[in-house]
């Protein structure tokens, strides 16, 4: 029986299949096929099946679960290819989604970008004013009806929506997080009057306080809804025809899977990186390294997530196309830095990124017409990459093109024509940007990066981790054996997970029975969802959290909530909040006399999946280098003879010392001078830096 994971990226569609009995794993890596993504998925599946000596049909028939991380929702947002979407809003507040709290010009932009006053603007709106309809209705802050829902008005708007050819509608009324009755009734009326139109209500997508963010969440969900639902329905049908017997599971940004029929489409946004974090968390637990900084370097972005005690954290806010959303989403920070990041000279400064050559035209060394030097070009010039073995030999690299690009754009203006020095400088700048992000992410969350092990995956992570990891203070860097398809592994291992939320500001003290009622309701809703995903009761579990703040503060701190509320467990909540607050903001920062206000309540309803134990390989044998060539040594600031190893054939238990380059199909691990390397029994690579000493 197999567990299959699929992750579609911009360039490649990654597939892994894990045999539950033996723990053996096979991978497939196919080119992504934007015109019809199903083709790339099938190509990847065929390759993975071959790994077990099977036909596609046999693999699918033997698949116990199949989980898919999709980029469809992100693509629809970035390419503006979502549905024609209308919005229903409370009368008097229809402009909320256009006003964007006055922050729409700068949301999601760096300080650097914000200050280009003439170049910045609001995003291209997903719903213009003409698409927004005001409905007479109003709730107060406690969810009491102030103005009844004008049903006739809703019906009238519904007919207008049909007439104007809208494919989706977002309904977002004030205080619907306190009382969703008007939104729900509106959805019913829309279903009656405009059947076939996709309806998203804000109380379902983001039942939390803050009308702009809740409305934007519903809007984006409506916008991607028909696209995502249509794609998944087609894929599910295709896979069933090809032999899949199980329901297709979809990875969500919260790190868990759901079924296609229960999916809130916008929850799939950034599900690939989320799956990567799930994979990293699983690995961290199985390796006995509960505290891990997960880093993912692709072609265009560098992503960082923290895992503490084997658990990831959740983001408070998501920015999509400069809209600010509230989604249950793993906290993954990112900057524009990756293998395709372009190096450029600004005045007499060397800068790298955030612009990327992406896959088209790609780095200069791809020979696809790119003339600007990228990080990958620098890696090639520095001797870390083997031109004829790039991506497992699928693509030949052109060192002459890389040298030419670096020479003309960086070496000549800044380094007296010294191409190697220029390439080393490009690498140093990009690596320190990555290290800065790691530090920022850990410090902002109240941690010290030196207390963590690091994990590096994605196509370019293993080639740079030795530098940015050591720079950020990591003592140990773990590179998973399947680093290049790591997110697909995470998808295959994901639990079923539903994130339920409720907002209700309560200043302590409060009757614990009231809190228990809130959570019981959320857990009942979670149970229904899990049942809908065929999770049997013995596999269900619930984890509670609460977001609280000191009174009159706005920013919330999330802590775990007890599994049941009584006087005692409630009394323990206050000091727990104080501790977490001080951990985040420093000793003595807690304001004991201000009073604590509970604001948001959540339950993670989890359906545990069986995670196969990965196959262990017997240790033995000596690591034998494949070849030897000169590669850059940042310590000595020169090219030095460096041994090149073939990764898959390195025996478990083997140890070697940098400088060394270890090549895997799809990625290359760089170990710097003096760093030690150990291959463990699962064939993961452990890099030991000197940061601790």
């Amino acid at each position, binding site marked *: 029986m197999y567990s299959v994971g699929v992750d579609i990226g911009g360039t490649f569609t990654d597939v892994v299949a894990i045999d539950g009995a033996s723990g053996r794993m096979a991978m497939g890596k196919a080119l992504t096929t934007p015109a019809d993504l199903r083709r790339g998925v099938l190509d990847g599946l065929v390759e993975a099946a071959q790994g077990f000596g099977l036909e596609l049909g046999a693999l699918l028939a033997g698949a116990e679960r199949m989980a898919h991380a999709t980029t469809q929702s992100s693509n629809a947002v970035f390419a503006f290819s979502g549905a024609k979407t209308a919005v229903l809003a409370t009368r008097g*507040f229809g402009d909320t989604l256009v006003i964007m709290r006055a922050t729409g010009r700068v949301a999601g932009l760096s300080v650097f970008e914000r*200050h280009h006053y003439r170049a910045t603007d*609001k995003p291209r709106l997903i719903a213009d004013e*003409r698409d927004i309809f005001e409905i007479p209705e109003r709730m107060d802050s406690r969810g009491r009806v102030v103005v009844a829902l004008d049903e006739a008005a809703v019906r009238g708007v519904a007919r207008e929506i049909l007439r104007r050819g809208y494919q989706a509608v977002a309904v977002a009324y004030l205080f619907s997080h306190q009382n969703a009755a008007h939104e729900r009734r509106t959805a019913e009326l829309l279903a009656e009057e405009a059947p076939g139109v996709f309806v998203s209500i804000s109380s379902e997508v983001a039942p939390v306080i803050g009308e702009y963010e809740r409305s934007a969440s519903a809007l984006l969900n409506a916008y991607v809804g028909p696209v995502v639902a249509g794609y998944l329905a087609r894929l599910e049908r295709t896979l069933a025809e090809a032999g899949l017997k199980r329901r297709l599971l979809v990875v969500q940004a919260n790190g868990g899977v759901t079924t296609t029929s229960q999916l809130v489409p916008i929850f799939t946004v950034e599900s690939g990186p989320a799956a990567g974090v799930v994979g990293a968390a699983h690995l961290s637990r199985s390796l006995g390294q509960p505290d891990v900084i997960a880093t993912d370097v692709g072609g265009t972005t560098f992503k960082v997530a923290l895992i503490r005690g084997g658990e990831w954290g959740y983001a408070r806010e998501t920015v999509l196309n400069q809209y600010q959303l509230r989604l249950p989403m793993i906290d993954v920070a990112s900057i524009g830095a990756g293998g395709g990041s372009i190096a450029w000279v600004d005045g007499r400064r060397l800068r790298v990124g955030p612009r990327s050559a992406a896959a088209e035209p790609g780095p200069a060394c791809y020979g696809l017409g790119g003339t600007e030097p990228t990080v990958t070009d620098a890696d090639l010039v520095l001797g870390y990459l083997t031109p004829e073995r790039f991506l497992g030999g699928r693509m030949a690299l052109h060192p002459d093109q890389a040298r030419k690009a670096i020479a003309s754009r960086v070496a000549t203006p800044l380094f007296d024509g010294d191409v190697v020095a220029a390439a080393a*400088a490009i690498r140093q700048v990009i690596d320190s940007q990555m290290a800065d992000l790691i530090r920022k992410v850990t410090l*902002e969350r109240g941690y010290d990066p030196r207390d963590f092990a690091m994990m590096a995956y994605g196509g370019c992570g293993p080639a740079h981790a030795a530098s940015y990891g050591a720079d950020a203070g990591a003592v140990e860097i773990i590179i998973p054996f399947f680093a290049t398809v790591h997110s697909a592994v995470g998808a295959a291992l994901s639990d079923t997970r539903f994130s339920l939320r409720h907002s209700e500001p309560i200043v302590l003290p409060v009757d614990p029975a009231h809190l228990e009622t809130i959570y019981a309701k959320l857990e009942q809703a979670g149970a229904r969802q899990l049942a809908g995903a065929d999770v049997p009761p013995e596999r269900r579990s619930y984890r509670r959290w609460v977001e609280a703040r000191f009174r009159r503060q706005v920013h919330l701190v999330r802590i775990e909530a007890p599994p049941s509320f009584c006087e005692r467990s409630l009394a323990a909540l206050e000091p727990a909040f104080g501790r977490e607050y001080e951990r985040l903001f420093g000793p003595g920062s807690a304001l004991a006399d201000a009073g604590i206000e509970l604001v948001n309540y959540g339950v993670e309803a989890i359906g545990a999946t069986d995670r196969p134990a990965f196959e262990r390989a017997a240790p033995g044998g000596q690591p034998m280098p494949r070849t030897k060539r000169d590669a850059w040594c940042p310590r000595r600031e020169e090219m030095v003879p460096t041994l090149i190893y073939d990764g898959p054939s390195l025996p478990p238990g083997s140890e070697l010392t940098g400088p060394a380059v270890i090549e895997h199909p799809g990625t290359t691990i760089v170990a710097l001078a003096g760093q030690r390397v150990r291959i463990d029994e699962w064939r993961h690579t452990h890099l030991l830096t000197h940061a601790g000493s």
Partner: protein
Amino acid sequence: MKRDAAATPGIDPVTFEVLRLGLDAIADEMAYTIVRSARSTMIKDCMDYSASLCTAQGELIAQAVNIPVMMCSTPDALLPTIRKLGATLAPGDCIILSDPYEGGSHLPDIFMFVPIFWEGRLVAFSSTCAHHADVGGMVPGSGSSDATEIFQEGLRIPILKLYERGKPNAALYELILRNVRFPSMLEGDLEAQRSACLIGERELQRLIARYGVDTVTNGMTALLEYSERIVREEIRAMPDGVYEFTDYVDEDGMDPDPIPIRLSLEIRGDRVIADFSQSAPQVRGSINCSLSVTKASTFTAVKCFCRRPFPPNSGFFRPIEVIAPEGSVLNVTFPGATFMRGLTIYRINNVLFGALARAMPERAIAADEGGTSIVVMEGLAADNERFLYMETISGAWGARATADGIDCASNVTGLQSNTPVEVLETEYPVEMVQYGFVPDSGGAGRHRGGLSLVREYRYLAERGTLQMRADRVRFAPYGLYGGGPGGRSANRLDPHGKDIALAAKVKGRPLTRGEVVRHVLAGGGGYGWPFEREPAAVVEDVRDGKVTPAAARRDYGVALDPTTLAVDEAETARLREAMRAGVNTADPPLFTQ
């Protein structure tokens, strides 16, 4: 390995870039700490705070900018601090100040500095500044519109050590907290500032441990020189000349006279001289600016007109000279009142943008809404607890030479955000009746100005008071090169009943339960002749309700079928011909107000 040593003496371009990134990351980290741990809405939701690192000599080196004006004025607060306390500074010290007559800008803005030492040597300062919700004075929020001298505006904090060698100055704390209305809020906000400064200290020391103290201090010098060099190159590329511009603050809330801000801006070689000598003398009301603020506004405006980005540090201030005589509204002398000086800052910015528009029409932005409005409501809440609600409201951008003005974005001089209705209503006895755009309020033009915002409040507490600070009621935001002015601002009481006009500056007016207050922000000015706007763009605006069909005809000369919105081309051509004939297109007026 050879690196270009000539570029930035003493430091190679890679180390330079790595340090720049590192210093920026520290400033960001500090700003993040403030917002996460502060208490008041002004700081947390309106983001009225900033954080920075400065050199031991008091030069700004890296900043996390929310309020650019606040930031660029940091050196003028730090320099007197160094002069006064320089010799006594020790690790663990933490200095505060707010007095505009000793480095501050207005009393609610409290600056805080932590000196950073390395091996016994002072190497830098971490600095924060935040607008506090109340620092005492005549009215809650400290923002009385009828203050005429600084003593009425709250507690003046001279340059003093709040912490000395790590020990809090309990007496100073007690004195401060005794003199403000919401002591626990101020205490929390001060601690938030201090946490941020300490993080700046810790992280800079980490950077020094890694790269060495000389590399880091040389890097700072190189950063300053780099920004200076870029700015000089940028200014050199601007057309030389003297550019004059005048705009007005409606009044100061005390006397009815308009207050002119007159600028003569000279661009000469690689220098800019902003001469405000002909501006109004100091006024009785509280809209007077310290010179530091006038300078900071000028720096920010010049930066907006540069093409290339550069690190916003003290280096870029060097080629820019600002002249404002003592005793003028732009260089206040003791004991002038300053609380509402934010309003004047916005107008200084409008004037600078206007003068720069003369020099560089292709980079110009027409007048914005004229600055954020402030609304303050206070009283007793149902639980008999005293409440104070204060918010700033950000509105419209003026049209740009290349694009329409933005409909609602925070002002160029700040990065505030508007308070969510749900947060307002959950926390305070106030109901929002309406929050939206006002049609036809964007200045007409080839590029349209951003629309006005309206915010309408119903007061739900038993009784209390209302304060408002608005402007642009009399002098509309100007349009450029034929573009029309933006819609005017207005304050109304009982807008759906008696509809009473309130003054632009409302000072402690009593409020009782159920009363409705309406505030309309001004709209942005337009750019270029309205009759040159593509009729299709006008139709799009009508579709979105931004422009009414009547205004399409009146302001843009576009005749539309009111139902189908089809353009009557013949009628439109006729209307536009008539409009064109009525103006001198060869010489469009620089601005219309």
